């Protein structure tokens, strides 16, 4: 469907030094998929999106949509943005204030080459799309009288009226307040499923990305760190960066004495002792391998309890409970083990109090040994 290969676009800042961009990104998006570009600001996700749209001209690489090459640095192909079969929803919505709701949504059908319709067909089409996003009662309303959420829907309708081959969404929810954001999030997903349109979604909000996407590409400093479905990205990160960026995690510095291939298990020396870890990517022998484990995957028990006695002997260490933070559905513990502090989350069923001597178990399948950044 969409193919992006070795996409390169580097900015230079005013003083001539390199100033971010995308430094070689490759990915494929399948038909009907909702694909998310996720990363902190300045990671190159917006540049990637704008390059696909044609709003930026890349300096290298290849972009093709279905059978059409949109950009190819080698063959010097660069289809102008207005000839690309792509609809886009902007961060600011970009609803034209001098047009009403209908005119905004109908605009692509008036100007896009090969999408022009007769007046009656156009009216029919715009009505059905506005109905789809729930704006059918606002057709004649001046666009300046719409609320933020309605503008968002109209921006979506405008991008969909021409039935584009690809829909781009540039942080579309970032201007909405928290409650509306969650509501629009599920609605976006529903609309995407209903229309079956292939979509690329850009966000810096990891929970939004996990909730909405079929697949996620996590980006950092112009490079794609990992591509996978939300479950993989969360549970099987292949780099420290991804593990840290998505959710909360414990990170230990370890020493690895042998080269280990992805999918294997091997022991790593950590400040908590030797831990048997799972490898999600190939890692070479290094004195600074990262060992990560999510707080909810560590098993905690009071020394002397039955539960403690039942824990396996491997991947065990003892420490002191430092703090307990009650958060309602879960409880957070900080446990001091030698000089490290380990964060643990459990359901509030344990009866532990600070200063208790506790023992911790790190299940091997969820204790991951990772390099800092993968590519």
């Amino acid at each position, binding site marked *: 469907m969409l193919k992006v290969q070795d996409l390169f676009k580097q900015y230079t800042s005013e003083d001539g030094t390199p100033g971010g961009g995308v430094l070689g990104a490759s990915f494929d998006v399948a038909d009907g998929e909702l694909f998310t570009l996720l990363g902190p600001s*300045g990671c190159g996700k917006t540049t990637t999106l704008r390059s696909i*749209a044609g*709003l930026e001209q890349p300096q290298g690489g290849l972009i093709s949509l279905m059978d059409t090459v949109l950009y190819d640095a080698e063959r010097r192909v660069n289809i*102008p*943005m207005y000839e690309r079969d792509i609809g886009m929803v902007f961060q*600011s919505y*970009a609803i034209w204030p001098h047009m009403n709701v209908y005119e905004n949504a109908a*605009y692509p059908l008036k*100007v896009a080459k090969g999408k022009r319709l007769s007046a009656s067909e156009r009216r029919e089409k715009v009505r059905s799309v506005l109905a789809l996003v729930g704006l059918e009662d606002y057709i004649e309303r001046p666009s300046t009288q719409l609320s933020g959420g309605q503008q968002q829907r109209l921006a979506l309708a405008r991008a969909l009226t021409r039935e584009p081959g690809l829909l781009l969404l540039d942080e579309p929810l970032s201007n909405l307040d928290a409650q509306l954001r969650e509501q629009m999030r599920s609605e976006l997903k529903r609309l995407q499923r209903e229309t079956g349109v292939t979509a690329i979604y850009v966000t810096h909000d990891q929970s939004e990305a996990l909730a909405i996407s079929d697949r996620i590409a996590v980006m950092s400093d112009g490079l794609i760190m990992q591509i996978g479905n939300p479950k993989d990205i969360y549970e099987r990160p292949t780099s420290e960066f991804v593990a840290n960026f998505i959710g909360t995690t414990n990170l230990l510095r370890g020493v690895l004495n042998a080269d280990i291939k992805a999918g294997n298990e091997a022991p790593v020396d950590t400040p908590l002792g030797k831990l048997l870890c799972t490898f999600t990517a190939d890692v070479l022998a290094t004195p600074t391998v990262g060992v990560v484990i999510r707080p909810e995957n560590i098993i905690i028990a009071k020394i002397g309890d039955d539960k403690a006695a039942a824990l396996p002997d491997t991947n065990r260490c003892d420490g002191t409970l430092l703090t307990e933070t009650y958060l309602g559905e879960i409880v957070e513990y900080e446990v001091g083990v030698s000089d490290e502090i380990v964060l643990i989350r459990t359901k509030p069923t344990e009866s532990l109090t600070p200063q208790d001597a506790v023992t911790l178990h790190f299940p091997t399948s969820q204790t991951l040994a990772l390099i800092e950044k993968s590519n």
Partner: protein
Amino acid sequence: MTTPNRSVNNGLFSGARLKNLFGISPIVVVLASILLVLIAPAVIFLFQSSLHETQFDGSFGAFTFQYYVDLLTSDQFLTNLINATIYAVGSAAVAISIGVLLAWIVERTNTPGGGWVLIISIISLGIPSVLYTISFLMLLGKVGPANEILMWITGAEDPLLNVYSLWGMIIIEGIEFAPLSYLLLSSVFRSNDASFEEASMMSGAGILQTFRNITLRLAQPAILALLILIFIRAFESFETPALVGLPGNVSVITTDIYESIDEVPANYGQAGAFSVVLLFIVGALLIWYNRLSRNAERFQTITGKGFRPRVMDLGKWRWLTGAILALLFMIIIGFPIGIVLWVSMVPYYDGVSLEALKLFTLDNYRTVFNSRSFHDSIGNTVIMGAAAASVVAPFTALCAWLTVRRYKGAWILDQLATSPLIFPAIVMGVAFLQVFLNLPFGLYGTLLSIILASMVRYLPYGMRYSYAGILQIHTELEEASSMSGARQTTTFLRIVMPLVAPAMVTCWLFVFLVSVKAVSIPILLAGPKSQVVAITLFDMWENGITNELAAMGVTWTGFMTIISLIFYMLAKRYGLSVR
């Protein structure tokens, strides 16, 4: 997410399919060429004329430095330079004193009647400078009410004030610049957080102490910048020195330029040398001003979170400030307009008296309305202003759009279009006079020549409005159009133009108003068939046709005030500044 130097990827204007010059869009090259063709010849001919002997027919003779040598070795030049400096400093001081007082009363206190001050701004943009200066000559002249009142108070036999002097020039020019000074200072005072003043009052300071120690001190950088701005404007002004200074034998550089050209035979070389010197002085001052005003703006943004533009309660003192407000209103607008109205309705002007009331007549208006030359002059002026504005508004809109959207090389357009700012109007007149005298197109003396020079002169003003208008359009509004499948031209016509239209209309009105107000350019360029209102008024005054002048002035000012009012309403509605 913002990234530095985000360039646009566009189809048509970048000439994706055309061979282009270093990636610069053809449209930028075309616009830059037009600007160069308009501006460069004026600059070149101006310098040339000052370096070549003047021939009788106006063409260039042998190369010479004589004009500069004459100028720098003459005592008169030094005297005039000192005159000009005193005049400019004095005018700035008067304008700023009135401006500070007005702005403080209106913006920072609960004095009643502050809203009326807007009328000052509206009328002052509509009234021709010549007429405004003349109205003060009527007020302060030998037979004017000011002298009569003074003679009545002191019992003196002869008039005490001689307005045709340096101080007369200072007072008149200072009052003329007071509205501008008020306008700029009011925006400074308005953006001050009231809590700064409240904190001072809570520390035990009185209203005047607070005004002196807090309000004025906070506005100090802005006031300094404004001082230089008005200094420059007065230094390069022509109307007041010509009408007030020359009859009293007080010359400044701008009147020297005018006299070099007005004498027979015209000494273009000398005028050129004066102009070049004035150009460099003003250029240097402008650089200084730009630096200061940038600082002033930095200083202005000190307002924090709890910003409340609240005003100070003056208690019963507000009636005093109200009276001051009324007095200033009368001085700036009431008396000048009043005297012109009076003069327009009497058969001859011999001061303001009850006896004269019996002579009231509309004959002057009848004479003026039936005069062909009046019709011609009004027609010419409207054509001139409308033509200049109609070119400047869309042209600068396109330049500003290309600049704001960072088309490659478009910064040149911005630089070129704002460059005429360093030309004092009279210098611009001299420069274009040289162009038209030396070009074989027969443009000399035509209305078209005035239009061309005015266009160039007011390009920077147009640029300022267009730029502000374009800045308000979010880039994504245009990108959304491209992503809808619209080509760049479609986007420009269907999205950019409608969105920038209010700014363009405002820009049009402003350029129209300032170009029809001015004297300096047409006085050097106009021929017998291309008279404009400002010149007609100027000539009528020189020839002593005072009453008909007043009738014509009242009519014209009424017309222009309506246009000015429309301009203010539009500018306010679309959030554009009205400087």
